[in-house]
Each structure stands twice: as structure tokens, then as C-alpha cells.
């Protein structure tokens, strides 16, 4: 809540202005406010084209930077590869995952679910801040 709006509500609470006057003041206040600048959140959903991974780090005293841009279409095409994996190969992978303590059944993972996952990447932002490294994963 901004300061001016708070002042109007305070005046209303103290009985210095009526409800109608408070409403008029708030409407006038909203009319006079400049439009907010469009930020990353202002982007309509589903319009992201790329997945970006940006890593800034310091290694051996030298600055290191990794900047990867992957089209989301490429991810969508990639998840279709999962449908091509032969069932016997999935069985072997499941067995190895179980051995490693990850009881995960890859046969239950459907391409449609993976595509839905890629579709919702649009709304995802991951930021990791470490003293010597920063990682950002987002869509644009």
C-alpha cells in the first residue's frame, strides 16, 4: 500500500472525511499514478521462447561465466525422445535407479506429462546465490 493511500484511509478512520470522499480521493489517486513499467512478470503466460541458464562464478581467482539459451521448442522436441526409448531399456534404467536408492519408475512418465512440465517452465525462475557463484534459470 502506498503512502498517499494510507493517509486517505487514516483520515477516513479518524472521521475527518466521509467514505464517499475517501473513495473519490482514491480514484483520483489511481488516475494520477503513472503506469507501471512492464517487468518480467508482465509478460503474458505461454509467450516465453527460450530457457536461459546464466552462471556467474569465480574460479581460481578468474571470473567465469556460462550463458546458455535453449529454445523451449527444442525441449519440447527433446521430451518426445522419451517415447522412443524401448521398454526393455526403461526397465534396465529403473533397476539401476532402484540400486542407487531412487525408486523411480520411468515407464510411468508419459510424454504428455513432460510436455506439460515444459509448458509450465515459463513461470519458473530459479536463483541460487553463493558467495562465489550465482546461478539463474529462467524463461524469456
Amino acid at each position: 500500500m502506498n503512502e498517499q493511500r494510507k493517509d486517505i484511509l487514516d483520515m477516513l478512520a479518524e472521521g475527518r472525511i466521509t467514505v464517499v470522499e475517501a473513495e473519490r480521493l482514491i480514484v483520483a489517486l489511481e488516475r494520477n499514478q503513472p503506469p507501471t513499467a512492464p517487468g518480467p512478470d508482465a509478460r503474458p503466460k505461454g509467450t516465453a521462447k527460450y530457457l536461459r541458464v546464466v552462471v556467474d562464478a569465480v574460479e581460481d581467482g578468474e571470473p567465469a561465466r556460462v550463458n546458455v539459451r535453449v529454445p523451449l521448442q527444442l525441449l519440447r522436441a527433446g521430451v518426445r525422445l522419451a517415447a522412443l526409448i524401448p521398454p526393455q531399456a526403461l526397465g534396465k534404467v529403473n533397476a539401476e535407479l532402484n540400486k542407487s536408492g531412487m525408486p523411480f519408475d520411468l515407464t510411468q512418465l508419459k510424454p504428455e506429462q513432460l510436455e506439460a512440465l515444459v509448458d509450465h517452465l515459463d513461470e519458473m525462475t530459479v536463483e541460487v546465490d553463493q558467495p562465489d557463484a550465482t546461478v539463474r534459470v529462467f524463461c524469456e
Partner: protein
Amino acid sequence: MPQLLTVRVERPDGRPVRVRVPVLPVIVVLSPVVVLVALVAAVACLVHRVSVVRAFGTGWRIVSALPGTRVDIAQGRTAVLVAIR
């Protein structure tokens, strides 16, 4: 379909090396190899009981989605950039 592959390498001595590879002419030049690879891939699909049409369809989708991909890695004065347009 990718048109141009750009690889740029910056060495510690500051000399950049830039290579631009026009994808289509290279594929045309290497077409005998491409056909051979496609045949081997088709046989591998049949051996593993994977639909050849689906496999090639997925492969084509992946290749078509490559434009716009950009990988930029820099450490100190060394940098590598790979961009597909």
C-alpha cells in the same frame, strides 16, 4: 532448419577465432554420409523395435528447433561461443 552455425573462440592471448558454418551447403556436401547415417539409424530402430517414422520425425523436430540455441562460456580471457541461427 538451422542455417548458420557460428563458433567463436577467444584465446588467452586475445586472438579470437570465428568460424561460420553454413549448414545447408555442408549437408549437401556430406549427403552421402548423411544417407549412410540415416540407414544405420533406421536399422538400429528396427533392431530395437522403435518406429522408424517416429524416430525420424522426432529427430527432424529436434533439428528444426535448434535455431536460437546459444552457448556462451567464458573463463578469464578464454571464451567459447556456439550459436545456431
